[in-house]
């Protein structure tokens, strides 16, 4: 099998996909978190500012999901097919909420009527929160393993995605996104909304610490196989340690009112937690709960080496381009939100 720097292609592509999903979590995470908090803002002016804080960037952020999905399809078509068809209902709900979030943002500002704006605010906020929960639910099921049969098809019942563990991961995701979103909005706002957000950020942080502690306990007690890798390769334990330190740093920075730095660490936390997930899974992508031999791994799910090498080249050319104009857009809209006639 061909390698680059001693790393085989499926592993490299596993890292690429992981990087894309981390990027998506960090970027759309703050949009979804800000959306989940939306109904806590009472005044029309506050809601408009909150919406316009993500206005110019949410669409670009969502593209990371499209690219991540495309990369998963391209690199691991077997996983893409099994996971998406096996979790049909959650993915369909995800799509529905994704559409509702997008159109809520677009439509709310188009009419002045109070009921109109209230309707889209509710739809925007619920959609954002549900998207975060559903992302977590899918991740939870991947961590738990699924009933994969010998032909690499899901053979379980469609309601199985709604299990306590997956829901717990869902709420943890929502909590982390909400914290992340609150911190983002703190960088973008002033005055009364800012004051309100300082309280919301603390509450979101407590919400996250609670769910995260529960999730960690649950994982250690009921899903011991996820810790195997850390037992075998003990130096990897540094990663969860870093993740915990990064999490601990967020409330410290919040109490010092250094929200920009706190935002950096909530983003870093997402990346580190996803690295923990990657270490727990690798090289398995979805463990079969029927028979370990049926599991989907990065090797039996991978595209051919030729296809992988083409895609690695595409990624190598494309990544700097994407990062540079993403940076340009964020730079153009840096600083506190100012409403003008082009705003939502």
């Amino acid at each position, binding site marked *: 099998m061909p390698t680059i720097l001693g790393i085989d292609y499926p592993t490299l592509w596993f890292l690429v996909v992981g990087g894309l999903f981390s990027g998506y979590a960090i970027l759309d995470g703050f949009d979804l978190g800000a959306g989940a908090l939306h109904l806590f803002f009472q005044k029309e002016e506050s809601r408009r500012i909150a919406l316009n804080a993500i206005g110019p960037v949410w669409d670009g952020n969502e593209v990371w999901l499209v690219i991540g999905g*495309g990369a998963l*399809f391209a690199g691991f078509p077997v996983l893409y097919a099994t996971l998406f068809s096996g979790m049909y209902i959650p993915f369909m709900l995800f799509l529905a909420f994704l559409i509702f979030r*997008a*159109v809520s943002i677009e439509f709310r500002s188009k009419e002045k009527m109070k009921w109109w704006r209230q309707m889209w605010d509710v739809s925007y906020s619920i959609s954002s929160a549900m998207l975060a929960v559903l992302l977590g639910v899918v991740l939870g099921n991947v961590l738990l393993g699924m009933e994969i049969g010998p032909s690499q098809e899901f053979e379980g019942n469609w309601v199985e995605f709604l299990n306590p563990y997956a829901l717990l991961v869902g709420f943890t995701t929502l909590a982390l996104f909400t914290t992340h979103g609150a911190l983002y909005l703190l960088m973008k706002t002033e005055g009364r909304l800012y004051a309100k957000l300082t309280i919301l950020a603390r509450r979101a942080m407590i919400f996250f610490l609670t769910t995260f502690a529960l999730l960690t306990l649950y994982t250690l007690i009921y899903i011991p196989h996820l810790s195997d890798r850390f037992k075998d390769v003990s130096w990897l334990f540094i990663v969860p340690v870093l993740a915990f330190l990064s999490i601990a740093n967020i409330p410290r920075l919040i109490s010092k009112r250094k929200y920009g730095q706190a935002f950096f660490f909530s983003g870093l936390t997402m990346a580190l937690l996803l690295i923990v997930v990657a270490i727990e899974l690798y090289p398995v992508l979805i463990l079969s709960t029927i028979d370990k031999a049926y599991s989907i791994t990065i090797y039996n799910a991978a595209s051919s080496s030729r296809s992988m090498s083409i895609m690695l080249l595409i990624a190598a050319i494309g990544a700097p381009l994407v990062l540079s*104009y993403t940076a340009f857009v964020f730079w153009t809209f840096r600083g506190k939100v100012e409403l003008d006639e082009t705003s939502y």
Partner: protein
Amino acid sequence: MDVEILSRLQFAFTIAFHYIYPPLSIGLGLIMVIMEGLYLRTKEPVYEQMARFWTKIFALTFGIGVATGIVMEFEFGTNWATYSRYVGDVFGSALAAEGIFAFALESGFLGILLFGWNRVSPRVHFIATIGVFFGSLFSAVWIVVANSWQQTPAGFHVVGEGMQARAEITDFWAMVFNPSSVDRLLHVWIGAFLAGAFLVLSVHAYYLLKERYVELSKKAFKIALGVATVFSLAQLLTGHHSADGVAVNQPAKLAALEGHFDSLAVADAYVFGWVDKENQEVTGLKVPGGLSFLLHYDFETPVRGLNSFPKDERPSALNAIFQFYHLMVAIGMALIALTLFASLQWWRGTLFSHRWLLWVFVFSVLLPNIANQVGWFAAEMGRQPWVVYGLLRTSDALSAAVTANQVLFSLILFAIIYTLLFVLFLYLLNKKIKAGPESGEQVQHSSRQEGMVGRLGV
């Protein structure tokens, strides 16, 4: 109903709905680039005013286009799992390229296009508009390449057998430039330019009839008429070329398009007609030997007919394919006639003196949009029973893990959401059109902009 019918219905419904929006965005993108280019060149505020107006409409079509586009990407995995396993190795690189080169480009610059009027200089804004336009062009490239590969597969080999079989890429560029991709891409691009141009023509014709924004509308109408005339004619060429390609690469589809059954017979071309599948007859107005002539420049050469294919390798919805195809062609001809006539009036200086002509343009916006839809219906239904032509049957491409009830649930879900979305789209489009372009005084340049210009050094 079974999973196959429901999954096909759902995919057809979601993609047909989606396809209302991207062509409008691509076409409006072109028009906006021209308008902003003219503004930079002439410095006449009227061009900026119209560019700003169309940007608002663009935001609406683009937003819905993005929201409804992710649905298809997910449906490959959710509803067509076997297809995804089969084509992933080939299709995947096109999809990855689309995401990274196209979507990221257009969505990245979209923020500046929509919200950057007062934050960046006109020149940087123009670059952002071009960025979004090129992004939308590229997204069409990759998705049409992927679809064309399904019509005329190339640059791959098949590995494994039975349910484990899958296509693996052997030559990336042969996959990209498969026999039908260039013709079809040009056809799709031009269809999109026409959809956008006719929307602009329609709205400004309406303003002229209502005597609102008269000077602005005359200028905008002429820009769009220029685009529409050139591309209506060009579409005839790409359409003809596409059909030649279909004759070589997908003979069963070509035979279905004209309802041609008998291989030994000369093939007719119909202006309109009705296909009787049972008796293998077409009734209608025809040019005898017309299809033979179009393909071989000779009225006598026989064309391979449907009967020369095994029964299970022929498209089944023959009359529907025939009707969709002929409707598309008829619309194409009508657009040529309409734009040439209007251009003649323009040349004579009487373009805006015929009220009836302006009324025709108000409603003509429906034509290219309908043609874009039915053209795709003919192309995709004509490919049946294959999802990948000659390699993988649609009935074999489904998800084994998904039940009919699940698909029924999602189909109803999408039907409700999309109906709501379409009503809202029309309502808001109407509202924006009624509101019209902002006058010069309303378009305020903040002092901030001047500062930005200095700092960016442009």
